[in-house]
């Protein structure tokens, strides 16, 4: 089963920016997948389209076989999203943010509270349970968004630059947590512009630049062809992007 199947995906924003120029991408169930690319490559745009937050201009997207056009609500139940930007109400308490999200997924309040406590503990936010989100550190806010994304036990977890601005120690902890989630069966897609992060965690990788997939391979194959080579490929692509600017 394919967790994600994307065919001929195009997106032109109302500003005229062509963010995606025909993306094809298949991600298998159970995969730990990296979408690697420099800033402005189109990573967040792909994710917003998969999660129905942005409308596509053209193409086809399926989540576990369900088309986002035909049954968007069903497609949404499979996904947990950790967006790039913080998007919770900073005046709400940690526990309320997580349980409210559970409610949106149809989980009754009593069960939501139990699940929320469990998940908050797992992410090391237990002592911040009744703290206002505003008072959390950057890394904690990121973990809060992970807790929120996992509350309905999604089959697919998508993280958009989860470690941007997170310190090394916390990053290692987060990697550990994600690895365990993946071992327990959750398909994970993350975007990053750190090559090391993709190397460390992911089984498959796609390098994307200027709205196009430039390379899509198993990590192992890439590493076999030489670590330097991979770095060079990536640097080349980034260089290209810089020159255009």
């Amino acid at each position, binding site marked *: 089963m394919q967790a994600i199947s994307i065919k001929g995906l195009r997106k032109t924003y*109302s500003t005229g920016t062509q963010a995606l120029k025909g993306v094809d991408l298949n991600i298998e169930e159970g995969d730990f997948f990296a979408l690697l690319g420099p800033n402005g490559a189109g990573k967040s745009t792909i994710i917003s389209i998969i999660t129905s937050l942005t409308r596509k201009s053209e193409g086809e997207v399926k989540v576990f076989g369900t088309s986002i056009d035909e049954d968007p*609500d069903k497609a*949404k139940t499979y996904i947990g999203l950790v967006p790039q930007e913080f998007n919770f109400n900073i005046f709400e308490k940690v526990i309320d943010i997580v349980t*409210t999200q559970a*409610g*949106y*997924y149809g989980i009754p309040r009593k069960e939501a509270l139990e699940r929320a406590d469990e998940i908050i503990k797992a992410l090391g936010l237990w002592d911040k349970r009744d703290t206002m989100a505003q008072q959390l550190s950057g890394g904690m806010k990121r973990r809060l968004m992970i807790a929120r994304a996992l509350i309905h036990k999604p089959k697919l977890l998508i993280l958009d630059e989860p470690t941007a601005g997170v310190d090394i120690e916390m990053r290692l902890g987060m990697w550990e947590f994600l690895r365990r989630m993946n071992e327990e069966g959750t398909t994970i897609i993350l975007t990053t512009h750190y090559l090391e992060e993709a190397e460390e965690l992911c089984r498959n990788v796609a390098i994307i630049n200027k709205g196009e997939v430039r390379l899509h391979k198993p990590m192992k194959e890439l590493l076999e062809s030489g670590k330097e080579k991979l770095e060079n490929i990536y640097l080349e692509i980034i260089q290209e992007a810089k020159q255009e600017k």
Partner: protein
Amino acid sequence: MWTSYYTMARKEFVRMIRIWSQTLLPPIVTTSLYFVVFGSFIGSQLAAIEGFSYMQFIVPGLIMMSMITSSYMNTVSTFYFAKWQRTLDEILVSPTPNWIVIAGFISGGMIRGLLVGTLVLIVSLFFTHLVIHQLAIVILAGILTTMLFSLAGLVNGIFAKGFDGISIVPTFVLTPLTYLGGVFFSINQFPEFWRIVSLFNPILYMVNAFRYGFLGISDVSIAMSFSILIAINVVLLGLTVYLFKKGWGFKN
């Protein structure tokens, strides 16, 4: 699905109660001042209107005015902030259908409007005694009006691009129409020209329907009032559903 609706409504209600000094108190203070200044001081100098004291006459209008403002302000601000802070995405990524999302926002506005209306009614009891001609009309007019202005506030919130976008309509459209909508006077006291102009103000019909429920008097036909209320509700609901389907103003 109902859990999702219940979650939205509950969240709104909890917020409303938590920050009661911003959501519930201001309209009560304002209308109390109206009761004192217009009702007691000035009203006592004025002739009775169709057998009711001026105070009794303005009570339904002032309740209506506070309900209109509260329900409108509730949806326009909650929706705009949800859009601006991107917390709207929390709902949009979930499998909650659009009509439930709309119902959730509308319920927030209606609960606030009806709650404020009830509180203002209780305050009015300190100034005059309660007369109820037909309770069913009071309730129906209250529900339809708060629903209408919750929808209108939501549409405003969808279109608003900045903070001025959420205050222009209330200040330059809503407030004047409300003040001229027969809250403080019967349009029969107007010169003919202005009386006819007033008949184009939809709020006039709502205030009069509501007043009819309390006092049994009205400047316009009650059937007409309810037809207008229902018609505007239907149009606004259709528009809101359409805007949500297109993701207008909140989906790229």
